[in-house]
């Protein structure tokens, strides 16, 4: 399409104009190239800096919360027993230190070394276990209680409580048995043969001796002096009752600090050692801690790093040698801490 004939004359401009235009032109060129160069420089010479990533201005420093300072740990030796259950609920030990675990609709009895003695099936998984001095197994199944021999045959089915009752813990005191009912938010006091005495914990939530239990975590235990202790998890307190069921003492503070209890329904479980000091287990921030008999924090036994983050319901039992048995259902293990 192009052709090659002589070119027609073009108009000539005065010198000045040309100069100016050339000047302008070069200037513009320079500018353009500079801008390009700077862009290129930015992309080409920009080194990805992973050392100092952008911080989140709204960071909520959670990582620090779970952490427990090294010096706050007591020196314990840890061992472990594996248990076969997908889901295990209750843990107990008898006077010969045999271990009773309920899970997967059965009750398993192990020697303290963890060897299988017997295992027998139940209609539903027992929600609480207690072993009498004559080795009778008291097992709670949500809203009723049954007793078995340690070889597994059923002795007696108690008449069930209120249908919606949910028993989370049992403790035997000689001829009496205390039954923690998380649904009714009271502790029933029965004779071991099944006759009802009284219910501890008033219905009126204004009262100091009322239990506030947002969820099914409600543990009871017996101190060496046979006073009944219960976990008022909604108030983050441990409360004790005298022999006629009146509130006597309590302790426990609310905060995320290691000395106190926080989150929902803590301490979810606890047990009392032979010297009267308390072992508490918490969920949310999963940790097991030791308090002296006056409720003063002594030391942490195991922190969140020791357990699955998701672990709830760390059942605790103390055997005759003051070993602390902690059932961690999530990993099918019983941790044994020796202090």
């Amino acid at each position, binding site marked *: 399409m192009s052709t090659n004939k002589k070119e027609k004359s*073009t108009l000539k401009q005065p010198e000045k104009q040309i100069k100016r235009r050339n000047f302008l032109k070069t200037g513009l060129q320079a500018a353009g190239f500079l801008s390009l*160069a700077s862009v*290129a420089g930015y992309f*080409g*010479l920009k080194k990805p800096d992973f050392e100092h990533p952008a911080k989140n201005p709204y960071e909520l420093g959670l990582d620090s919360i779970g952490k427990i300072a090294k010096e706050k740990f007591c020196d314990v030796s840890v061992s472990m027993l594996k248990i*076969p259950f997908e889901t295990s609920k209750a843990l107990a030990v008898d006077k010969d230190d045999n271990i009773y675990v309920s899970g997967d609709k059965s009750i398993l009895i192990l020697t303290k070394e963890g060897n299988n003695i017997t295992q027998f099936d139940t209609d539903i998984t027992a929600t609480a276990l207690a072993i009498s001095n004559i080795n009778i197994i008291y097992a709670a199944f949500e809203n009723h209680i049954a007793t078995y021999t340690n070889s597994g045959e059923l002795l007696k089915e108690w008449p069930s409580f209120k249908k919606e009752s949910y028993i989370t813990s049992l403790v035997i005191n000689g001829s009496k048995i205390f039954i923690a009912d998380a649904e009714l938010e009271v502790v029933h006091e029965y004779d071991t043969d099944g006759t009802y005495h009284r219910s501890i914990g008033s219905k009126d939530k204004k009262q100091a001796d009322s239990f506030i239990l947002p969820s099914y975590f409600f543990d009871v235990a017996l101190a060496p002096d046979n006073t009944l202790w219960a976990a008022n998890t909604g108030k983050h307190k441990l409360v004790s009752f005298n022999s006629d069921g009146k509130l006597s003492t309590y302790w426990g503070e609310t905060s995320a600090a290691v000395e106190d209890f926080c989150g929902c329904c803590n301490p979810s479980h606890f047990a009392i050692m032979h010297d009267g000091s308390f072992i508490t287990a918490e969920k949310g921030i999963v940790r097991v801690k030791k308090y002296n008999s006056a409720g003063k924090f002594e030391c942490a036994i195991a922190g969140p*790093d020791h357990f699955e983050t998701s672990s709830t319901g760390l059942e605790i039992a103390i055997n005759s040698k003051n070993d602390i048995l902690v059932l961690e259902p999530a*990993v099918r293990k019983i941790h044994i801490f020796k202090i």
Partner: protein
Amino acid sequence: MIDTSGIKKLSKYLAILSASIITIVSIFMIVNYVQLSIHNPITGSTIDNLVKKLDSSGNEQELREQIRVVDLLSRKAYFSSLWQLKAGAWILVGFGMLLIVSIKIYTQKESIESVLIKKQDSFWIVKSKERKMMITSVGTIAVLAIIISFFSNKYYDNFNTVNKKGSTILSLNTSENNQEASTALQGDTTVKKVDSVLVADFPTDAEIKQNHPSFRGPFGQGINFKTRLPISWDGVSGKNIMWKKPIALPGLNSPVVWGNNLFIAGANATTRKVFCYDRLTGKLKWAKDIKNIPGSPSVSPKVSNDAGYSASGLCTDGKRVYAIFTTGDIICLDNEGKQVWAKNLGVPSNHYGYSSSLQFYKDKLIIQYDDSKSCKLIALSTRTGIEVWKTKREGQISWSSPIIVPKGNSAEIIVNNLPYVACYNAETGKEKWKTSCLSGEIGPSPAYGNGMVFVANEYAKMVAIKSGKVVWENFEYLPDVSSPVAYKDFVFFTTSYGDMVCINQKDGAVLWHHEFDNGFYGSPVIADGKLYAIDRTGTTSIVEAGKEFKLKGQSSIGEKSDCTPAFANGMMYIRGYKNLYCIGKK
């Protein structure tokens, strides 16, 4: 005339006014913005520090007061500055419009004639200028591109799968790096977490379920977790056949799939090979000749046609693939087909030919090594091939394969032989329980579901076992070659006589039974909620895995097959006697 000039004056002043306002406002806004970005009162650390002080120093009331004041002020500052920005924006818009309008009026020309026609360079001069300019600018861009690439390629890694150079190195060192890294990253979390949560040298259960790592799919249980699977195809007409490739060497092992790799093995009396295909294209990525392994016999022991020289299924953990042959050769190759390790486990004396498939658990390769002399269960380290544990088992030879039952952080291995069904701890190899209930020549592998183990064999019985105790027995129909599969509340199996049977897990009652024309050797598998069973003629019957017999479809690859299909999402892989088929939806 005067009138217009008056308007013009006005507009001029307006223009100046609005222009100045705009500049002022925008300056304010910029300052405001800069302040906000330098110190955002909301994210500022002042309050946090005060609160820390408060926590440390008991309960000082005035400190509390101070905090409250600071908090109030900061929030005020934050919101008011945001409000200012908004207001400023509106002001700018308003005056911007005013400015435009007024200037428009001011610069309005009386008449068009006043346009001056500026002199111009002639056409060609202009063009040549353009040309020069274009070339220079494009040239600079090119140069800059080169500079950038020169610098940047130092910083950026190459994950590209096309650029051969980078890829192999990468895939090798990642496997190493991961572990160091993940352990290094650990900090004070416990070892338990290192291998479960953070990446170690083996895949998570979730990943295993996303692939088809071994005979009968994840954990060898015969249940696949894939969806959108084909229901109808035809090997002859090529309907829904994505690709079809001839297989160089015969073998009855079923394909295994991980990511885009598909592995099969083939062998005859003298040569043994492992093949890796690109499962999408069907391209043969590599074929590895398995030879000069110390202790390997020159000629493979005699085998029957029903077993062949390569009946044992391979398994892969995504990084490496493992294969075992009738010679007792076991080899581990990486995804590029390079040998990682290999050994001979001692030539098995087996009158049909060794045919148990491989399984793996975490970093252990599980081998059921039964022959006429002894039965062993062996675990080798997947990375090194070094023996981790070895358990001698009572009983006699079998041809079945182990299955893995994951139990949280641990797992159980369930194995058949004559006459026992036994359960072993995958970590230690310790026997958990053992039940004697089988007889005959054990072909079928166990099945597992709802906490129960289901085993059966011809001339024996079907047994359901829960933690070592027999729950029920059934003698009505019995599988002989193919393995049962437990799914939902049912157990399905097929026989070499063409029976397909569904049994109730609860009580062992036969829920339904259907007789097909041809017998089954390949094991039926559950995929996408349906039962896929290939008969000896290569016809796959797809049956709904439910309490009624519902035939969803029957399709043939048009060639004999005694294998079990492998699955990937939307795809299905069948090994015929001669060809490998990829079936999908075209």
